[in-house]
């Protein structure tokens, strides 16, 4: 029996516009799976190639009956799984050890003293990545090979075919098959035990997308244009407002300035303090002192002779404004304390201290004072160049933008006792900044020693200072203050020679 009735749908046939439908194939219905398997076997033996069976569940033995070749899906999944290995391991390798940064830099930091790359710890994530990528490959690969999703299929127009997902079994032979002939195939199907045979027709009149869907698509398409348009507009506009910041928690954290006195935060408008005296840091208890903070040795820490009167620093007059290219006016000496003229007893003055002084001097002092101490450091030279050429300076009454760094061989410097040079380095002088916070006390004394060595070396021609012994001892300069400064300098010939070209061998330190 042949049922020609098709499932009623909403298409409107257009008379006179060609055929309304086109034959796709013949569909035979069977009542149980054994009949279907037999029919498939027969179809294959009859030479049909383009046919398919439909059943509500996978029927065992039908693949052999139909001659279906085993799918290549497992090999596809295997290939993707190998890709998953590379992806999983590579991702972790890049994120945790890559030091190069083509786009995003890796985070190659040693954490907990562990090696940057230790594979066992990377196995769990690699495994999960492999499973995830293979599962995606299986799932999507299967649908791809089955050519699904397919939203229109002429089979779904057949009312009878609805039972293919319930309790009936179908065989369809396509019209495209070389063996296909409408009458003969129909006969064969009935011979194979089909309970019904029905033509499958492709509806040619109903292939247009419904108007409502087209309208919705148009609206959706227009809406999709909005974000790129907004991005384009934003790229070509200037917006002075700060970036959107949805959770500005980091911007509003309570922070405590160490010197602050005042409310730290407000809890329901009630000011809160850390401590009763409203400070955020505690003072050390009465009569205690921090480790390394004991500075009672005034000779070592201030460069002032022990037991002498220290003038009130507030009475020291402000130095006169410096003039570019000129040495500033000499400070008012009477207010100065009595500086030590020899190195404090706490120091061991020897060759290694000179070397240390040279090392520190080359780091901190040479930028202005120059390697040889002539006051011609690169920063100084460049600053003078800028100060002279600066247009602002031309009409200005004062051009004191840069005070020339002093030559260490200036007579005002060579006469200074070691304590005063130490004080200059510690607190700065005139426009020179203080280095007390950057250079440790002993290093500052080492610099003083090196400066004195340089001066002694330069003074060779006018033999102002002649080093008596290669290594001076602090005991040796228990001399009166009127002694020439630098008499205690261990300025051996070797030191002096090196001082002439410190730039070349300073790297050796």
């Amino acid at each position, binding site marked *: 029996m042949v049922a020609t009735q098709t499932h009623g749908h909403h298409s409107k046939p257009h008379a006179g516009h060609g055929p309304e439908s086109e034959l796709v194939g013949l569909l035979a219905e069977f009542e149980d799976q054994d009949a279907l398997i037999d029919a498939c076997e027969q179809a294959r033996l009859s030479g049909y190639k383009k046919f398919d069976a*439909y059943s509500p569940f996978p029927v065992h033995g039908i693949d052999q009956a139909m001659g279906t070749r085993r799918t290549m899906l497992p090999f596809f999944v295997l290939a993707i799984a190998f890709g998953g290995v590379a992806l999983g391991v590579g991702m972790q390798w890049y*994120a945790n050890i890559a030091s190069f940064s083509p786009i995003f830099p*890796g985070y190659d930091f040693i954490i907990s003293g562990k090696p940057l790359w230790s594979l066992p710890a990377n196995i*769990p994530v690699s*495994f999960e990545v492999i499973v995830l990528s293979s*599962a995606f490959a299986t799932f999507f690969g*299967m649908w791809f090979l089955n050519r699904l*999703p397919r939203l229109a299929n002429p089979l779904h127009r057949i009312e009878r075919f609805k039972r293919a997902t319930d309790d009936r079994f179908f065989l369809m032979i396509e019209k495209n098959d070389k063996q296909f002939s409408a009458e003969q195939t129909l006969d064969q199907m009935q011979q194979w035990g089909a309970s019904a045979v029905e033509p499958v027709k492709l509806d040619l009149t109903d292939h247009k997308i419904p108007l409502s869907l087209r309208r919705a698509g148009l609206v959706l398409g227009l809406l999709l244009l909005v974000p790129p348009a907004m991005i384009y507009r934003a790229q070509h506009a200037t917006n002075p407002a700060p970036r959107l910041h949805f959770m500005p928690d980091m911007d509003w954290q309570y922070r405590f300035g160490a010197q602050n006195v005042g409310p730290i935060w407000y809890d329901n408008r009630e000011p809160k303090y850390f401590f009763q005296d409203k400070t955020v840091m505690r003072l050390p208890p009465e009569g205690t002192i921090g480790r390394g903070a004991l500075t009672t040795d005034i000779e070592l820490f201030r460069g002032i002779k022990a037991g002498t009167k220290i003038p009130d620093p507030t009475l020291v007059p402000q130095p006169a404004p410096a003039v570019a290219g000129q040495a500033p006016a000499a400070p008012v000496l009477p207010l100065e304390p009595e500086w030590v003229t020899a190195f404090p007893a706490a120091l061991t003055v020897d060759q290694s201290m000179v070397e240390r002084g040279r090392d520190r001097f080359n780091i901190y002092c040479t930028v202005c004072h120059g390697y040889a101490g002539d006051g011609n450091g690169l920063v100084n030279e460049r600053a003078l160049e800028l100060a002279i050429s600066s247009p602002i300076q031309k009409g200005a009454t004062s051009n004191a933008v840069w005070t020339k760094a002093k030559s260490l061989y200036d007579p005002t410097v060579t006469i200074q006792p070691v304590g005063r040079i130490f004080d200059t380095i510690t607190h700065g002088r005139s426009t020179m900044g203080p280095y007390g916070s950057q250079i440790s006390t002993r290093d500052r004394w080492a610099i003083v020693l090196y400066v004195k060595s340089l001066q002694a070396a330069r003074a060779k021609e006018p033999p102002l200072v002649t080093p008596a012994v290669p290594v001076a001892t602090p005991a040796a300069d228990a001399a009166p203050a009127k002694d020439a400064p630098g008499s205690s300098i261990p300025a051996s010939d070797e030191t002096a020679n090196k001082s002439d070209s410190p730039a070349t061998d300073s790297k050796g330190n």
Partner: protein
Amino acid sequence: MATTVEHHVDNTIERPGERAPLVLGGLNYSEITRTVCDVAERPRPPRAWYIAFAISFALTAMFGVLIMHLFLKGVGVWGNTSPVYWAFDIVNFVFWVGIGHAGTLISAILFLFRQNWRTGINRAAEAMTIFAVICAGTFPGIHIGRVWAFYWLFPIPTEHLALWPQFRSPLLWDVFAVGTYFTVSLLFWYMGLVPDLATMRDRAKSKWAKIAYGAFSLGWTGSARAWHRYEIAYMILAAFSTPLVLSVHTIVSFDFAVSQVPGWHTTIFPPYFVAGAIFSGFAMVVTLLVPARELFGLKDLITIRHLENMNKIIIATSLMVGCAYGIEFFIAWYSGVDSESYAFKNRVFGWYYWAYWIMVICNVVIPQLFWFKSIRTSPWLMVIICIFVNIGMWFERFVIIVTSLSRDYLPSSWTYYQPTWVDFGMLIGSFGLFTTLFLLFCRFLPTVAISEVKNVAPKTHHS
């Protein structure tokens, strides 16, 4: 119908040389289809469904409100405090992840072992897996403090920070494990659903049902060539899911075992956690399916034999966790480490001794009732026992996490952890979310894998 089978045949009896029937009532193919689809196709579900849905939806709403409360106020609304920084949040996470494991075990491992009885229950169990993992994922998601920076969990390139996740951390492994587990479970479940959605599409009467089932069934026709690839894909997914499900709870146990807290730092954790996960998961499947089969008339498809088989697995895994509890004490003694031995003494006799004894009684003692066939084949008794198992398994995680943390190496910081009302509210709320999703699933999707059951049903012959 060719054969007539007694409706109330006892299929729990083993007859030598004969396979016990897995579909009762003599249902033929179309009757199987009708039985399953009827739940979704009847105009309105039974009144019990509405009552259950109203309650569970209200609890879900409460869960949402509490999560907002947490976001606005911060994690201080929980009772977590130094040194118990992990408490209900992580207990709930481990509990729910564990629940999920039964679904994958049924759908993947029993599939690979050719256990045909899985077909009656695998769909609901897989759905349960997905809903349980949703509940599980919620808790670590909301306990991270700065929830708006949740994406820092993932290896997403940052513009300025040049920061990447720490790939050596078990917490990061967790993100990958649970994320992969959820994704793969969803794919597996949806793939299984497609042929059944096609069945429902072909039976749909209303326009919206046609559109919805039509779109989600992807144009499935039941073609033999498609079935061929489908079955192979199903087997590959099962083969991947099997090691995956073992890895997930292993990695969850690494969250504890890799740390040095006494009571956590043990190598027994991975197998012990996996066994516990399967134990609690099967108990949850039984708890859900007994009422569902009553309510939706699925007694012929989810038979007493199915339930009995699950109860057998429950008693096996109960013995496994019981062994693990014992071995932990042995190792604590054998290690000779003072803090380790103390941690276990503290579990039994310390502050939280009551939690420990609830755990032992619910997990080890009560399930022994399943040795009696009359108990393991009686639906309502097994539900009661399974509820005890779930209580016990929740307390197992509580015991592991809270007792270990509350007394770790530094006695000066020992604290008695006390949950707040928000903690309890969120625990109950997560059950609401779980039940809501499960009830929606029962109402709108095929609760039993129709095409798979037909495969194990006796052949329908038309003459």
